[in-house]
């Protein structure tokens, strides 16, 4: 491969990886931005979404695309229930939220293990194979994950910034008391937010499960990646999360190729530290002024 072709391939790989990291993180960013809550069970919701997809497609024989939608709906429901009956009760106390969501994460993982066993499960993809365009190889499942990630991210941004409900979400994110004064039900918005967040986690899992693996503890690594991307992008900033995801993907891929796999994680984290030193609020995060 020529140097130019190599770099082009790396950019394509990085963008595609970044797209999936973005959709992984955007749900977490949404929860934090709106509810000011660090949801440690996000990784478990990712795993649960993957297993919903597996259940619908493999166990119940539904078409892959239909399985994806059904998994999204099921995960939305779970998110709503978790917010309504669990997180809402302890939201005022940060430590309680972390403890509760951590417990939920373990509970979900153990339930998955009990129901599905701890064995690796294979999930067939909606699409298989790869195509070569101008000398650049494009892995089709990964490309599809990227396209869906970008589409969903844009849809979410449009939803948040261009719809009435989205406007309500932004008001709640800005100031819950102000939202109450304006007659906005903070509880309903929170339920909706966690539902959407869970749905996004499930989407990421359903898209990535055919490429990777599906096992009960699969959610912990995505949680770490999502958290890093959210911090880099600016907590609560959807656009920042997308940009950060892409940066993560590009740095990860280029480092892996030129420096070696063992340098990937450390390089990504060094880049993040460097960005945060220059912009502590993250790429598109807002500076909060304390009086």
């Amino acid at each position, binding site marked *: *491969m020529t140097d130019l072709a*190599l770099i082009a*391939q*790396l950019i394509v*790989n990085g963008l*595609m*990886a970044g797209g999936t990291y973005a959709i992984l993180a955007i749900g977490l960013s949404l929860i934090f931005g709106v509810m000011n809550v660090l949801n440690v069970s996000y990784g478990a919701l990712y795993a649960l979404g993957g297993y919903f997809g597996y259940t619908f497609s493999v166990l119940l024989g539904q078409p892959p695309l239909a399985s994806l939608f059904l998994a999204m709906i099921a995960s939305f429901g779970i998110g709503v229930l978790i917010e309504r*009956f*669990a997180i809402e*009760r302890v939201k005022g106390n940060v430590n309680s939220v972390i403890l*509760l969501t951590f*417990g*939920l994460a*373990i*509970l979900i*993982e*153990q*339930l998955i*293990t*009990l129901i599905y*066993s*701890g*064995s*690796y*499960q*294979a*999930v*067939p*993809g909606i699409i*298989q*194979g*790869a195509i*070569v365009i101008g000398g650049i*190889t494009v*892995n089709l*499942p*990964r490309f599809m994950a990227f396209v869906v990630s970008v589409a969903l991210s844009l849809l979410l941004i449009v939803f948040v910034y261009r719809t009435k409900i989205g406007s309500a979400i932004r008001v709640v994110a800005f100031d819950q008391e102000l939202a109450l004064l304006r007659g906005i039900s903070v509880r309903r918005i929170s339920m909706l937010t966690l539902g959407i967040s869970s749905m996004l986690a499930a989407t990421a899992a359903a898209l990535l499960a*055919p*490429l*990777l*693996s599906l*096992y009960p*503890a*699969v959610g912990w*690594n*995505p949680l*770490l*990646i999502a958290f890093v991307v959210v911090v880099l992008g600016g907590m609560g900033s959807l656009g920042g999360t997308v940009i950060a995801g892409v940066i993560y*993907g590009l740095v*990860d*891929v*280029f*480092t*892996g*190729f030129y420096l*070696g*796999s*063992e340098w*990937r*994680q450390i390089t990504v984290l060094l880049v993040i530290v460097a960005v945060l030193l220059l912009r502590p609020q993250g790429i598109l995060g807002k500076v909060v002024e304390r009086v």
Partner: protein
Amino acid sequence: MKSAVSNIVTAAIVIVVLVGSVAGTYYATSGQAQTVTIRSTITQGGGGATSTVTNTVTAASQAAEIKIGFITSLTGVATDVGKQMIQGAQYAVDQINNGGGLCYAGSCHKVSLDIVDNGDTTDIAVVSANKLLQDQVVGVIGFLYTGSVFATQTALMSHKVPILMTSASAVQLTNQVLTNYSQFKYMFRVGSNDSGLAYTGFSFLQLINAKSFYAIAEDFQYAHYEMGFLGNFTKSANIQSLGVDFTPFSATDYSSEILKIVNLHPSAVVGSFSGDNGFAFLKQYKADPVASHIPIMFLGGPWGSKSTIDTLNSAQPGSADYIVDGTLGWNIPLTKLTSPFCQAIEKTFSFCNIGTQGVNYDAVQVLTNAIRTAGTTDPDALVKVLEQTDLAGASGRLVFTAAHQVLLAPGFTQLPLIEWIKGSVYVIYPPNFAQQAYVRPP
């Protein structure tokens, strides 16, 4: 009223969440919830009578039970391998109990496995080892990871608990027997070590007349050791190493590594993964139109399981085709016991993997044989007997070296190469066991 009902529901959910977390963690890390149902079918080889024996405990239950600790992956990425290890060990235990128990010094004892989790992190292994010490097991078999052994060996050795490793593969573990015999004499390995596994990689490269190779492995200690040995072997034979990548355990994207392989175009790729992260790499490797044509082999790992191969192929057709595994045998007549063992195991589990089921079956036999011969469970007496072991096992003729490692050599414990093609497995090396020649990926 509505608020009261809502509060009660919420309180109930919180309690369920917390209790569920605790209970789930407990059951996941102990052997209590792990039940292995074995229908022990013992087939006499050579056309003899076939008898099916159900699990019955005879008068053996009267005497004190002999508990053998068994530590393997009940959680984490290698649970499939852990399951197979338990299958082999439990089969041996059932066989002993069905035969009247472990009889020595005038009485017969029921044998049981005390199964605990080594998890993916050493802290889980430490907790599990402490439990085994509390349960006063006569020995510990298993250990999936080298790190787990290092983390627990001090406690186990100080309590003089014999360890028979069947998966943790660092040569350093058994070398401790040579450098500090008095402390580490209780350490034994039934199964291959990193050097033996690396040698399978070298054997494969020689088999295909490779001029160069590229190595990729998970960033675990054992993999570093394996690749180190492989580098030494290949250097001596002028096979060029084009590079080695140790991928983070958390890696999900292998596009960089695969692009490197495509760019360098080695004669073959040698990989080492212990669990599900290897599946992700393989799927992405096989999806690449260039990389998928480069021969690839793995140094042990989960590739000896037909269920794994079928699962991979069902998710991504062809993803497990033409892959080679250096493994501890695949129903080839390593000893007279191998085939009957495999036939019996296949009847129960529909597949036989000597590298997981067979080795752990052998380890139980080695330990119980030592107890029987020594006439005691005293660890020092057991060590003396274990050192004299010369037993025909399912995985080979089991004789320990001075470092308490089973001898890895033709006629003893030997690691053949197998190749998967369209869901069927073929032994391709060594020549005396080969069923067909290696088939290159089209």
